[in-house]
C-alpha cells in the first residue's frame, strides 16, 4: 500500500486497516500498522483519534519495543490531541532512569515534536535542570536526540538554559579531544560527526559565553578542529570532517572570537574556495558571505576577490549563485566599479536562469555604490542593452528618476541615450529609456551635431514600427515634448508630428489613442503647450524599488508568481508617474478657473475637520455639485454662516459629517466646505473599518480600508520615535478614479508628512504614498487620514484612523528582577506612578492578556511577581521630548472576578504615565467585535473608544477633540 501511495495514488481505503493494526498484539503487525499510519496520515486526520488510546496504552505499557513504536508515531505525526493527552507521559519516560536509552531517545524527539507543534500545551518551565541532567548522559543516541530537543528549546528561550551551556562544551570536548566514544558511533574514525555538528549548532543559539573557563575550553576545541582537519583521500571521511569544520567555523563567527582566530577562519575559507572539490567550494563561498554579515573582515575577504570571480564562471549553477551572492555582499565603494563591470561582462554569457537576478543585483550595486552618477547611467544603459529581456521595468524607472532629480546628469544622459539609438539593433527597453530621456532633455544638446530636434525625431521615429504599444505611448509623449522644445517652431517637423498624432487617433489601444488626441489638441493651443509639457518635476526621493524587489526575490521562490504580480503592480504604479502629464495637463486648458481649487479647499478642510478626526469610519457621499461651486459668491455667502456656527458645536458634533461648522479663519476660501446634502450612501465599505484599524494596531501591514472601488493598504516600519508608513492606494476598477485627495490630520503630538498623492489613479493600478511620522510626545490621540475620490458622479469621502498609535513607539524589553525592583521603587507615587482599579474588563484568561500585552509591544516578564495572577510588563517608549523612557506596568487580577483588575503604571514622565495607563485601559475594556457594524451615515462619536465606565477618564476623553481643535486654532 505504501508503494501505491508513493507512486502518487490515493489510498484512503486502507487507512482504517492500518489504524486497527496498531492495536494488534503481535509485534510485526503492530510495526506495520504504526509505520503505515505515520506515513499515510497527517496530524489532522480523523482516524488518528481512533488510534490515540491504543497509542497511549503502548506508551505506558511495559514492552519497550512497543513503547518505541508508539513514540515514533507520535513523534512523526502527533498533533494537538496527542499533545494534550500524552505530553506528561512522554516527559516522564524521558527522565526516568529505569528506561533503556532506546526508549528515552525516542521520548526526547517525541517531546520535541509536541513542543514545536503546541508550545502552549507542553509545559517546559523548569526543564532546564532536567535538560542539564540529560546532557550528562553517556549514550550517544540519547545525546543526539536530546541535543535536537535542546536546540528547539534554546532557540525559543535561551535565558533559561544557561546551565546547559557548559555541558555542551563538555560533550564537545569529550568527542573532539578525548575521542571517548564507543566504536559503533565512530564514523570513518570521526567520533559521531552528527552529534558534534548538533552540539555546535546548539551553542550558536546562546548569545555569548561569559564564563571565561568555558569559553577558553571551547576555543581550545574549536582551535583543534580548525587546525586538525586535513584533506584526506577517503571521500566520506573528508566530508564528515569538513562538516564538523564548517560548523566550527559558523560557531567561531557567531562567538565573534578574537581577531586572530577570525583571520585564521578567513584564510581557511580562502583555501576552500580555491579547491577542486565542488562541495567544499560551495560551502566555502556560502560561509564567506555569511561571515560578511557578522564581522568586519571585509578587507581580508577582498583579497580573494579574483578567486570568487572565477567561481562566477563555474559550470555549476549552485556555485555560481553563491559566488554572485558573495560578490553582492562584499561590494562596497572601493570595489564596486570592478565588481559591477565584472557582472556586466558576465551578463552576456550567463545562462537564462540567473540573468534576471544578476541584472537586478548589478543595478542595485551600481546605485548603492556609484562613485559618480554618470558612471551609474553608463552602467544601467549597458545593462539594459545587454540583458534587455531580463531587466525589469523598475530598473529603467529608477534611471529616469535619477536623471530627473539630478540636473547635472541630464545632458550627459541625453548624449548617451542618443548614442545608443545609433546602434543598429537595440532592445525595446533601451528605446523606452532613450526616448524618455531625449524627450525631456534633448533640447539641452540641441547645439551638438546630429542632435537637432529634427534628427532626434527621425532617429526615434525609425524605431516606432518595431515596438510594442506601451513603448509607442512613450514615443508619442516624446514627440510632443520635442515639438514643445523646438523654438522657434519648425513647421515641417510640426506637420510630421501632427500627422503621426492623427494617425494614432484611431488606434485600437485606448492609452495611445488618448495620448494622440490630447497631444494633438494641446499642440494646437500653442503657448499653453509649453506650460503643460514642462519638464517633469523632481521625483520624491524614496527607497529604491529595486532594493525592495531584491528582498522579495530572496524570499521563497514559490512566491515567484506573487512577485510577478507585484511587478505588474509596480508597472502600473509607474504608469501613474508618466501619466501625470496628461492628467495634470488637461484641466488647465478646459477649466482653468477650477484648477487650484482642490488644493486650497484641502487647507480649509483641515481645521474644520480636526473635530471630526476622532470619528473614524465616517463615510459620506458628497454631492459633487454643491461642493464644487463655480463662483465665489456662494463662498462669500457662506462665510457668515461659518462664523456664526458656535465653535463649541464643532467639538461636540465633531462626528457630524456636516462640515459647515467650524470657524474657518481664512474665510475667503470657505467655499469648499460648503454644507452638503447628506445622501444615502451608495458606496459601502467592505469589512469593518474599526476592526481593520484594530488589527493594524497590532501588526504593521494590512488593509486599512476597502470598498468596491478602492483598496487602501498600509505598511509601516517603526524605529524609535520615527515611523514610515506607506499607503497603497489600489484602484480596483477598469475606470480611473479621479479627484483623489488624501489629507493627513495629525494630532498635535505627531509630525506627519505625506508625499504627493496623484490626483488620478489609473485603472487597476496601485499608487504608493510614503508617509513620515515623528512622535513628539506621548499621547493617545489618533491621526486621521481624510481620503476622498470621485468615481463617476459619486464623491466618496472617508475618514480613517491611521494606526500610528502610542504602542507603535514602544520597544519591548525584558527586565530582570534586579533591574525592575529598584526602578519600580524609585518611581513612587503620582504623577510618575499611577494606580487605578479598572472594572468591566472584557473576559480573558491571563495568558490571553499576556499575549495582548506582548502584541502591543509591552513585554510581559514572567516570574517577576511571586503571585501568578499578576502580570508585569515593561517597554521603552520613544518620542522626541522624552527620548527613550522605560515604562513599567503591573496588573493585578482577581482570579475570583475576572472583570476587574488593579493596574499600576510607572514611567519617568507624568504625561507618559497617564497616557499609557489610559491606553492600556482602553485596550482592556474595549471590545473590537464585528457587532459594531459601520452605520452607513456616520458613526456616533469615537467608534473604537470604549464606553468609558469610569468617571475619571470620561471628561478627559470628551475634552480631547476640543483640546485638539483649540490647539489647532
Amino acid at each position: 500500500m505504501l508503494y501505491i501511495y508513493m507512486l502518487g495514488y490515493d489510498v484512503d481505503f486502507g487507512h482504517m486497516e492500518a489504524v486497527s493494526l496498531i492495536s494488534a498484539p503481535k509485534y510485526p503487525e503492530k510495526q506495520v500498522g504504526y509505520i503505515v499510519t505515520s506515513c499515510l496520515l497527517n496530524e489532522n486526520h480523523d482516524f488518528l483519534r481512533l488510534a490515540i488510546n491504543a497509542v497511549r496504552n503502548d506508551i505506558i505499557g511495559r514492552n519497550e519495543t512497543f513503547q518505541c513504536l508508539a513514540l515514533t508515531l507520535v513523534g512523526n505525526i502527533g498533533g494537538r490531541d496527542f499533545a494534550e493527552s500524552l505530553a506528561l507521559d512522554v516527559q516522564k519516560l524521558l527522565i526516568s532512569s529505569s528506561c533503556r536509552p532506546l526508549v528515552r531517545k525516542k521520548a526526547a524527539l517525541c517531546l520535541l515534536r509536541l513542543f514545536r507543534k503546541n508550545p502552549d500545551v507542553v509545559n517546559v518551565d523548569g526543564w532546564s535542570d532536567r535538560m542539564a541532567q540529560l546532557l550528562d548522559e553517556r549514550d550517544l543516541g540519547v545525546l543526539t536526540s536530546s541535543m535536537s530537543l535542546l536546540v528547539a528549546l534554546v532557540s525559543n528561550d535561551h535565558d533559561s538554559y544557561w546551565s546547559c551551556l557548559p555541558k555542551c562544551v563538555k560533550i564537545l570536548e569529550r568527542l573532539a579531544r578525548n575521542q571517548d566514544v564507543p566504536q559503533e558511533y565512530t564514523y570513518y574514525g570521526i567520533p559521531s560527526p552528527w552529534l558534534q555538528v548538533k552540539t555546535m549548532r546548539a551553542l550558536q543559539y546562546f548569545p555569548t559565553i561569559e564564563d571565561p573557563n568555558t569559553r577558553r575550553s571551547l576555543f581550545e576545541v574549536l582551535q583543534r578542529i580548525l587546525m586538525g582537519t586535513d584533506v584526506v583521500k577517503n571521500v566520506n571521511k573528508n566530508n564528515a570532517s569538513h562538516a564538523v569544520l564548517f560548523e566550527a567555523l559558523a560557531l567561531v563567527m557567531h562567538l565573534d572570537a578574537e581577531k586572530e582566530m577570525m583571520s585564521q577562519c578567513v584564510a581557511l575559507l580562502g583555501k576552500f574556495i580555491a579547491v577542486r572539490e565542488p562541495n567544499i567550494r560551495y560551502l566555502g563561498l556560502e560561509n564567506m558571505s555569511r561571515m560578511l554579515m557578522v564581522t568586519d573582515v571585509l578587507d581580508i575577504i577582498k583579497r580573494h576577490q579574483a578567486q570568487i570571480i572565477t567561481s562566477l564562471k563555474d559550470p555549476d549553477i549552485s556555485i555560481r549563485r553563491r559566488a554572485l551572492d558573495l560578490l553582492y555582499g562584499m561590494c562596497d565603494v572601493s570595489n564596486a566599479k570592478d565588481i559591477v563591470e565584472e557582472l556586466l561582462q558576465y551578463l552576456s554569457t550567463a545562462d537564462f536562469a540567473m540573468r534576471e537576478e544578476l541584472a537586478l543585483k548589478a543595478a542595485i550595486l551600481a546605485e548603492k555604490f556609484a562613485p559618480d552618477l554618470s558612471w551609474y547611467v553608463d552602467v544601467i544603459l549597458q545593462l539594459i542593452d545587454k540583458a534587455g529581456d531580463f531587466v525589469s521595468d523598475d530598473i529603467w524607472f529608477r534611471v529616469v528618476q535619477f536623471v530627473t532629480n539630478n540636473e547635472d546628469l541630464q545632458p550627459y544622459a541625453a548624449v548617451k541615450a542618443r548614442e545608443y539609438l545609433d546602434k543598429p539593433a537595440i532592445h525595446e527597453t533601451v528605446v523606452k529609456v532613450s526616448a524618455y530621456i531625449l524627450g525631456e532633455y534633448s533640447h539641452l544638446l540641441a547645439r551638438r551635431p546630429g542632435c537637432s530636434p529634427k534628427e532626434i525625431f527621425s532617429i526615434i521615429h525609425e524605431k516606432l514600427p518595431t515596438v510594442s504599444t506601451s513603448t509607442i505611448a512613450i514615443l508619442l509623449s516624446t514627440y510632443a515634448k520635442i515639438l514643445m522644445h523646438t523654438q522657434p517652431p519648425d513647421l515641417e517637423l510640426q506637420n510630421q508630428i501632427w500627422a503621426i498624432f492623427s494617425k494614432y487617433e484611431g488606434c485600437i489601444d485606448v492609452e495611445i489613442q488618448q495620448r494622440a488626441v490630447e497631444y494633438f489638441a494641446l499642440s494646437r493651443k500653442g503657448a499653453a503647450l509649453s506650460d503643460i509639457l514642462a519638464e517633469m518635476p523632481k521625483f520624491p526621493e524614496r527607497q529604491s524599488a529595486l532594493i525592495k524587489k531584491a528582498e522579495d526575490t530572496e524570499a521563497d521562490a514559490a512566491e515567484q508568481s506573487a512577485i510577478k504580480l507585484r511587478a505588474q503592480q509596480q508597472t502600473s504604479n509607474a504608469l501613474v508617474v508618466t501619466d501625470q502629464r496628461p492628467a495634470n495637463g488637461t484641466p488647465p486648458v478646459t477649466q482653468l478657473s477650477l484648477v487650484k481649487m482642490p488644493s486650497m479647499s484641502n487647507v480649509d478642510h483641515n481645521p474644520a475637520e480636526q473635530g471630526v478626526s476622532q470619528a473614524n469610519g465616517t463615510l459620506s457621499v458628497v454631492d459633487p455639485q454643491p461642493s464644487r461651486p463655480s463662483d465665489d459668491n456662494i463662498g462669500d455667502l457662506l462665510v457668515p454662516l461659518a462664523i456664526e456656527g458656535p465653535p463649541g458645536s464643532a467639538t461636540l458634533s465633531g462626528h457630524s459629517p456636516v462640515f459647515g461648522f467650524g470657524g474657518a479663519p481664512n474665510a475667503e476660501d470657505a467655499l469648499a466646505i460648503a454644507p452638503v446634502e447628506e445622501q444615502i450612501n451608495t458606496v459601502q465599505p467592505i469589512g469593518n473599518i474599526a476592526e481593520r484599524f484594530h488589527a493594524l494596531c497590532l501588526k504593521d501591514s494590512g488593509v486599512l480600508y476597502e470598498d468596491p472601488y478602492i483598496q487602501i493598504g498600509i505598511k509601516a516600519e517603526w524605529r524609535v520615535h520615527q515611523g514610515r508608513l506607506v499607503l497603497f492606494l489600489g484602484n480596483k476598477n477598469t475606470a480611473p478614479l479621479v479627484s483623489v485627495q488624501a489629507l493627513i490630520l495629525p494630532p498635535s503630538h505627531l509630525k506627519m508628512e505625506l508625499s504627493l498623492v496623484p490626483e488620478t489613479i489609473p485603472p487597476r493600478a496601485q499608487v504608493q504614498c510614503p508617509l513620515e511620522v515623528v512622535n513628539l510626545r506621548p499621547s493617545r490621540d489618533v491621526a486621521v487620514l481624510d481620503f476622498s475620490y470621485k468615481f463617476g458622479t459619486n464623491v466618496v469621502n472617508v475618514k480613517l484612523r491611521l494606526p500610528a498609535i502610542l504602542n507603535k513607539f514602544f520597544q519591548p524589553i525584558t527586565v530582570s528582577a534586579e533591574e525592575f525592583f529598584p526602578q519600580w521603587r524609585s518611581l513612587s507615587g503620582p504623577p510618575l506612578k499611577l494606580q487605578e482599579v479598572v472594572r468591566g474588563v472584557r473576559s480573558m484568561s491571563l495568558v490571553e492578556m499576556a499575549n495582548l500585552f506582548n502584541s502591543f509591544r509591552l513585554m510581559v516578564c514572567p516570574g517577576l511577581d511571586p503571585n501568578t495572577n499578576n502580570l508585569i510588563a515593561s517597554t521603552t517608549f520613544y518620542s522626541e521630548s522624552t527620548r527613550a523612557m522605560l515604562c513599567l506596568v503591573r496588573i493585578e487580577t482577581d482570579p475570583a472576578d475576572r472583570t476587574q483588575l488593579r493596574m499600576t503604571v510607572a514611567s519617568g514622565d507624568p504625561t507618559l504615565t497617564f497616557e499609557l495607563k489610559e491606553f492600556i485601559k482602553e485596550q482592556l475594556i474595549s471590545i473590537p467585535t464585528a457587532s459594531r457594524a459601520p452605520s452607513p451615515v456616520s458613526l456616533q462619536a469615537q467608534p473604537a473608544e470604549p464606553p468609558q465606565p469610569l468617571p475619571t477618564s470620561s471628561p478627559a476623553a470628551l475634552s480631547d477633540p476640543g483640546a485638539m481643535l483649540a490647539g489647532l486654532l
Partner: protein
Amino acid sequence: MGIRFILMVNKQGQTRLAQYFEYLTLEERRALEGEIVRKCLARNDQQCSFVEHRNYKIVYRRYASLFFLVGVDNEENELAILEFIHLLVETMDRHFGNVCELDIMFHLEKAHFMLEEMVMNGCIVETSKSNILTPIQLLDKAS
C-alpha cells in the same frame, strides 16, 4: 527543523522511496518530486551535491543507478547530511548485503523501518548501525 523529506529515485526518475516529515498533499508531492528529480538528474559528477530549490536545499548523492535526495532547510549542515546519506546506505548494505535498487523496491517496509529508526520528525536519532538494525532483526525473528 532539519530534514524535510527523503527521496530515493532511480536513474529513470521513478521514485523508489519517499518519506516526508511535513505534510504535503499528493499533488504537491508529485510536483515537487518531479521538479527536483529533473533538476538533480541533469547534473554531472563535477558539480557539487547541493541544489537550491524553492526554499529547500537538496542534498543528493548518487549510488550506481539510485539517487538519494534529502531536502533540508537552512538550518542544517549540508555535509553532515551528505554523510548521513552514506550512513543510511551503509546500514542498508549491512542488512541486505550489497544493497541494490531491487532490495529497496521489494523490501520497502524494511527500508522504512530503518529510516524510521534513524530519523524522526526531521532530526537524526541514531547513528549506530547495530542499534538501528535491532528492531528489524527482532521483526525477522518474529516472523
